[in-house]
């Protein structure tokens, strides 16, 4: 995480705050996060303002994140953002909030809530601070989230397709195609969309979809089954 902030001129407050800050920082650096959190929170109670307090708030969030307590990390990061919206390290706070949510993601087949919240937080980060050090990593994680959510909607599409609920299947696959185009699930989603349309006797839509599948994925293994050969004419 970022280096310590440059000390400010108020002498009296500055020294006694630092006296409390250093042991907490050392505890964090050696990985003893629970003591670090305790010391940081004591410091904030005694010296609620000033650079050390701000740094303590950030480090508390980071320590919670390292201990895997994503909710507490998110809460600490949010408090920093409200208190110091103009602080130079506020982009780091947004990033911390994002990775705390990201940490709680279990995968495509589980609770989608943390994934959606992580995506929204990273989205704000990359839009407000496009060239911050954390934007690159944030974009990478956003792509990963798109893959996960895309796969999730594809799984649900297949769940309903097998149970003859073709409108539901088509709708879920369309969500993959429209909202998660970059996810690898798009290919299979196009395939199941085409089959759903076929099952519902919507021949025109089925052919369109098959053509788009062929156009985007010329060597897709699903083309054979759809009775579509190679790169047909465009949609």
């Amino acid at each position, binding site marked *: 995480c970022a280096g310590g902030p440059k000390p400010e001129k108020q002498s009296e407050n500055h020294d006694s705050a630092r006296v409390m800050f250093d042991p907490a920082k050392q505890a964090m650096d050696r990985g003893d996060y629970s003591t670090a959190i305790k010391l940081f929170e004591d410091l904030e109670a005694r010296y609620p303002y000033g650079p050390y307090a701000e740094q303590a708030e950030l480090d508390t969030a980071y320590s919670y994140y390292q201990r895997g307590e994503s909710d507490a990390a998110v809460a600490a990061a949010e408090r920093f953002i409200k208190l110091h919206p103009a602080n130079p390290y506020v982009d780091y706070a947004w990033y911390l909030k994002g990775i705390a949510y990201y940490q709680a993601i279990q995968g495509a087949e589980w609770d989608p809530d943390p994934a959606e919240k992580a995506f929204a937080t990273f989205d704000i980060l990359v839009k407000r601070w496009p060239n911050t050090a954390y934007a690159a990593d944030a974009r990478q994680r956003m792509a990963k989230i798109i893959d996960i959510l895309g796969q999730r909607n594809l799984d649900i599409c297949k769940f309903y397709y097998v149970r*003859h609920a073709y*409108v539901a299947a*088509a*709708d879920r696959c369309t969500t993959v195609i*429209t909202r998660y185009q970059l996810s690898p699930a798009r290919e299979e989603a196009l395939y199941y969309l085409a089959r759903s349309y076929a099952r*519902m*006797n*919507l021949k025109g839509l089925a052919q369109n979809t098959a053509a788009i599948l062929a156009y985007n994925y010329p060597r897709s293994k699903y083309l054979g089954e759809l009775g579509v050969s190679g790169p047909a004419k465009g*949609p």
Partner: protein
Amino acid sequence: CNIYRVNVQQGNVVTTKELAELHPGMDQLQVRTILGSPLLQDPWHPDQWVYVYSLKPAYGTLEVRKIYVLFDKDGKLLGVQGDVKAAAATATTAS
């Protein structure tokens, strides 16, 4: 004894009475208030809405009814196609 299955109903119920209320030139909002919003999003043709109704009874074959609603470029109703009546859809569960 056969397995207990559940009827599978999908899509919008559109009655001939509602269809009769449509007349060309209506905008999309008017069509939506009469027919309701289509459950099936057509990703490829923004100016075409597809109202599908399907019912697969627990032990019977799938029966599908579909209605295409077509709009011109600036969203005015052009016309309606499709088997408004309950056409017996061919059994396509074979594949």
